[in-house]
């Protein structure tokens, strides 16, 4: 059985697609068969972050409507052959997805892949509900910022009440906290919620902390998921996330600011 993992957040712009792309590549590099699905119907972006935007011919909605087969719509990643992408449609048809037809596609994909990563749209509307409905696990992506944390908590409520697992009374969705855009320096200065603060409030296990990093913008500019930038702090932090997802215990990095020398402290800078 494939593991269905939704990358969700409630709030937009916190790093869902960046994280989905990194996690997809990371798991595939470990030899797993992975498919990344963009659930953001009407606003597809996973293709851009993955660098395959010019290879999109058919999309998720075409498959749902029977206008294309899965084989036609799936885009094989050029870097890692065990990774495929199922892009969202660009035409806005908010009624395109429902539980039945999404369930059918996921079942088909489950026969071919080990991991199905669902990149959720922002918000708590139908699209976001569809992305989380069939999930076995959820990666709740959160910035250390009040509105993001609050929205993440709302999403946790949805995971516990509106998912298939909740409706059928099965074992609940396994929740993971992924804290992104973390700045240890600002935390030390008392300007940003700390990892412990967010863990305290949301009370779910921590999967990873991705530092605020210039590498993320560079990666999206180039369409090369940041995990491929193996020297970068964000790339290394995502690598740790993959190891933890696969059951390893890895110490958290990038949680403390680099110490300034005594001279720069005295003279500023």
């Amino acid at each position: 059985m494939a593991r269905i993992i939704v990358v969700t957040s409630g709030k937009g712009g916190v790093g869902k697609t960046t994280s989905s792309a990194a996690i997809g590549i990371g798991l595939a590099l470990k030899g797993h068969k992975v498919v990344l699905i963009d659930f953001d119907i009407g606003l597809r972006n996973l293709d851009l972050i993955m660098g395959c935007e010019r290879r999109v011919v058919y999309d998720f909605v075409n498959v749902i409507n029977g206008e294309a087969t899965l084989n036609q719509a799936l885009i094989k990643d050029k870097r890692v052959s065990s990774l495929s992408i199922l892009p969202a449609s660009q035409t806005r048809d908010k009624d395109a997805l429902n539980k039945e037809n999404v369930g059918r596609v996921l079942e088909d994909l489950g026969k071919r892949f080990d991991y199905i990563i669902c990149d959720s749209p922002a918000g708590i509307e139908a699209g976001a509900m569809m992305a989380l409905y069939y999930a076995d696990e959820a990666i709740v992506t959160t910035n250390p910022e009040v509105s993001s944390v609050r929205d993440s908590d709302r999403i946790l409520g949805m995971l516990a009440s509106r998912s298939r697992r909740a409706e059928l009374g099965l074992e609940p969705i396994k929740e993971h906290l992924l804290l992104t855009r973390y700045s240890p320096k600002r935390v030390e200065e008392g300007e940003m919620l700390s990892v412990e603060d967010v863990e305290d409030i949301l009370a779910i296990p921590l999967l990873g902390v991705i530092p605020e990093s210039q590498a993320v913008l560079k990666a999206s500019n180039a369409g090369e998921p940041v995990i491929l930038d193996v020297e970068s702090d964000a790339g290394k932090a995502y690598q740790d996330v993959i190891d933890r997802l696969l059951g390893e215990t890895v110490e958290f990095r990038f949680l403390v600011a680099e110490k300034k020398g005594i001279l720069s402290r005295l003279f500023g800078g």
Partner: protein
Amino acid sequence: MALLDYFLRKKEKQVTTASKAKERLQIIVAHERNNRNKQPDYLPQLTEDILNVLRKYVQISDKSLSINLDNKGGELNVLELNIELQDENNPD
């Protein structure tokens, strides 16, 4: 001036914006969670009454009745009643 800032900053740490953020979040999140799980006050009494009515006719334990009020969005509320009857030949 950097030296002066360094010492002054230590004192300011008492009420940082981060601790304000945490406090505000704890309050609002607790409040919202409370609303999320909110069941009307009459539910325990209703459960008790239904149990008593059922007991006139069948043997039933407290655990065999579950009652749940579900908001299906908008004005539609569904009262869900789940009664498990014991097998008469095999009571346990």
